[in-house]
């Protein structure tokens, strides 16, 4: 049997006010563009989360337990949904209650904390765990680090924290001749199972589906299921990980993406050797095919599949350095609002906006960027982080 393992990432950052200028520093502690955050949450809820959840629920009922999926929803996104679109939270609860949906654990603030502060990473993973438990009554066993950022160390840390499964990008540079269509064991680990995203098949849906210049356009459920079925005999799992916003948001509903997906489970299950499983179920039912050594960081972003979408240019590194340099003082303040405000500034999107790689991935960066330029993103962020620093001075936890 080959397992089809679906994981949907759901994340919305708290976007900052683009007019937070120098004069605000030390005087104005209102950093976020609440109107934009509300509007985007509402819009994406209406275009994607609500109709797509409805479709998933319908598919789960229709296939009576044979259609199974998993979600990874950032804490900052859950907060905004609770505030601006609570009916979406209700529909996720309904999905979890079917027993066919696994909720994954990530960092609450969708941050790069693993790379910059192990303590903060722990805090955020546990905060997210709490949030999932409180909202959905389940405790996650599978870990997905922000943007599929992964290395041996991430796996080891996740294993230590008690996770059974972990997700990563099936990046060419780590796979070599290996296939992403098996379960692996991270090199330094003894129990945790590693699932690697099949980026080709995932991106056929997430990126290429509506591309009219793509030779496979228009893509039908039957044709796509045929590609999946080719894995029979040469793999044990096919990991399709993508942004949930693919459905109705990145790909407009007029592209037919929802119809495509609605027909897909039946097409896939038409082959008797195929089944749907959640990450935890895959890892529990398969034996690792091999050990996989990933000594350096990979991610699912851009063509490089590394950290250069968020770090590496001087703007990003200077912003990250300043943000994490305040960690001790922020925590010492014991001011929960201030800690929360600071943590929201750790969300990876802020650094993504400062990316200056305008070439092959520029388009994707532009799409997600509320700023006119990476320089504006940097200037606003630095103003805000300087205001946090001023607040800390008033607490006398920082000189």
């Amino acid at each position, binding site marked *: 049997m080959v397992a089809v393992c679906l994981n949907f990432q759901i994340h919305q950052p708290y976007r900052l006010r683009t007019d937070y200028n120098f004069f605000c520093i030390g*005087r104005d502690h209102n950093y976020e563009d609440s109107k934009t955050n509300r509007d985007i949450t509402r819009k994406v809820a209406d275009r994607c989360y609500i109709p797509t959840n409805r479709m998933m629920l319908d598919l789960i009922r229709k296939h009576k337990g044979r259609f199974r999926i998993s979600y990874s929803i950032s804490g900052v996104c859950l907060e905004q949904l609770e505030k601006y679109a609570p009916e979406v939270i209700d529909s996720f609860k309904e999905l979890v209650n079917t027993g066919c949906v696994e909720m994954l654990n990530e960092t609450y603030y969708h941050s790069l904390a693993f790379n910059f502060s192990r303590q903060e990473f722990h805090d955020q993973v546990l905060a997210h765990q709490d949030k999932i438990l409180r909202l959905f009554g389940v405790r996650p066993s599978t870990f997905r680090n922000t943007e599929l950022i992964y290395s041996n160390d991430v796996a080891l840390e996740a294993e230590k924290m008690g996770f059974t499964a972990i997700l990563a990008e099936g990046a060419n540079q780590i796979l070599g001749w290996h296939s992403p269509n098996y379960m692996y064991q991270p090199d330094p680990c003894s129990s945790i199972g590693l699932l690697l995203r099949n980026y080709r098949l995932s991106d056929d849906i997430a990126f290429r589906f509506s591309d009219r210049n793509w030779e496979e356009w228009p893509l039908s459920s039957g044709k796509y299921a045929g590609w999946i079925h080719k894995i029979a005999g040469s793999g044990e799992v096919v990991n399709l990980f993508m942004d949930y916003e693919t459905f109705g948001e990145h790909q407009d509903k007029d592209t037919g993406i929802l119809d495509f997906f609605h027909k897909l489970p039946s097409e896939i299950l038409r082959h008797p050797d195929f089944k749907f499983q959640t990450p935890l179920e895959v890892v529990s039912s398969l034996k690792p095919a091999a050990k996989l050594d990933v000594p350096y960081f990979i991610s699912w972003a851009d063509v490089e599949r590394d950290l250069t979408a968020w770090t590496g240019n001087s703007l990003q590194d200077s912003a990250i350095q300043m943000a994490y340099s305040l960690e001790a003082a922020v925590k010492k303040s014991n001011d929960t609002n201030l800690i929360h405000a600071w943590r929201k500034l750790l969300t990876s999107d802020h650094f993504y906006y400062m990316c200056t790689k305008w070439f092959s991935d520029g388009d994707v960066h*532009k799409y997600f960027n*509320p700023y006119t330029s990476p320089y*504006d993103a940097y200037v606003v962020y630095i103003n805000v982080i300087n205001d946090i620093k001023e607040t800390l001075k008033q607490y006398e936890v920082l000189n």
Partner: protein
Amino acid sequence: MKVLMFGWEFPPYISGGLGTACFGLTRHMTEQGTNILFVLPHIKGEKAENSFLDMIAANKVDSSKSRIRKIAPGSKLKYFLVDSPLRPYMVDKTYQAKLEAINKINDRISEVTHRKTTANSVLDLSNTYGQDLITEVARYAYTGGYLGTKETFDIIHAHDWMTFPAGIEAKKASGKQLVIHVHATEFDRSGENVNRQIYDIERYGMDMADRIIAVSHRTKSIIVERYDQAPEKVVVIHNAVMKEAKLAHARMRKGFTEKIVLFLGRITTQKGPDYFVEAANLVLQSMQNVRFVMAGTGDMLPKMIERVAELRMQGHFHFTGFLKGAELESIFSMSDLYVMPSVSEPFGITPFEAMLHGVPVIISRQSGIAEVLTHVLTTDFWDIEKLASSIISVLSHPELAETLAEAGHNELQKISWHHAAREVNNLYKEMLG
């Protein structure tokens, strides 16, 4: 006496010192009895508000619908707006670059389906039209020929290169004498990489002029040496300062205790922003209770932001973008020191504004304003160590800062546009015999 005067910027369209200079000069010339018809490129949709002016607004100069509207009856200054995207300090290269950037941004805006908003940018790439700069200058020159035949006047006065062709056309059409006023040369704007076309226009303007006004001796020597003009043809009339109640805006207080060192101006090579950044880095190695602010915009801004990030000065160095109104007033009043490290500055009027706000000033020796100020600290623009130590001295010795501020403020009282306007009027009289 009636003057036909060509400019490129005027309040409220100020983007630099030229507008301020034209404003101060014409205001006092009119007070002294001179009538001025001021011709100005104008972008449709921008509002002109200036109570002391008589305003002539024309959407297109070749249109029969050109209209003359008197705003303040009896005023001696008329204001003629020519529909054109001309902007000071623009060369064709930056013009094209701006265009490309805007097109890119427009594409991007249409792609960003996440968000419908007018983006705020420190780079401020709005306000640009199509077409190339030289064509616009030629189109503006057409105004000169037109007004040369339609209007009556005694003398023609043109401010900087974009208006020289208009001045020449007016001279040809009317037979009147031409004064050209050099606020900056192509060597100031572009160093040694001069744009040949612009240089040729400047040179032709100077050759065709009956007299040339230079804003400093420094500029006069460039005109004589690089443009081959006879020294006796060139008269130096220094810029001055307006001391009117400009400080009435509601001002903001700073939200922190560190002292502020301000750079304010276009962020271009000519203004030496890179020397300011490097000096800031040196200062921060020996003192921490200071923040540096770079206010303004320009083609070097991205590079400056990257350099500040690279030097990890993010906790002490800020960028504001272009400032005006209350924010401009606020930044001056919040500042403890103003630095103008210009590489080449024909005059440089902003130190006056800082001094009016009681802010001590450090200027480069390579600026014309140094010729008229004694109570300022001066350094060579390239000497970042000297600049850094001067910054540290002013910030750490309050008595020095106070002395500079007070003496500077007093010195300003003697530098008036009234005097400069008198000199220009005298020059006219001498020319007209």
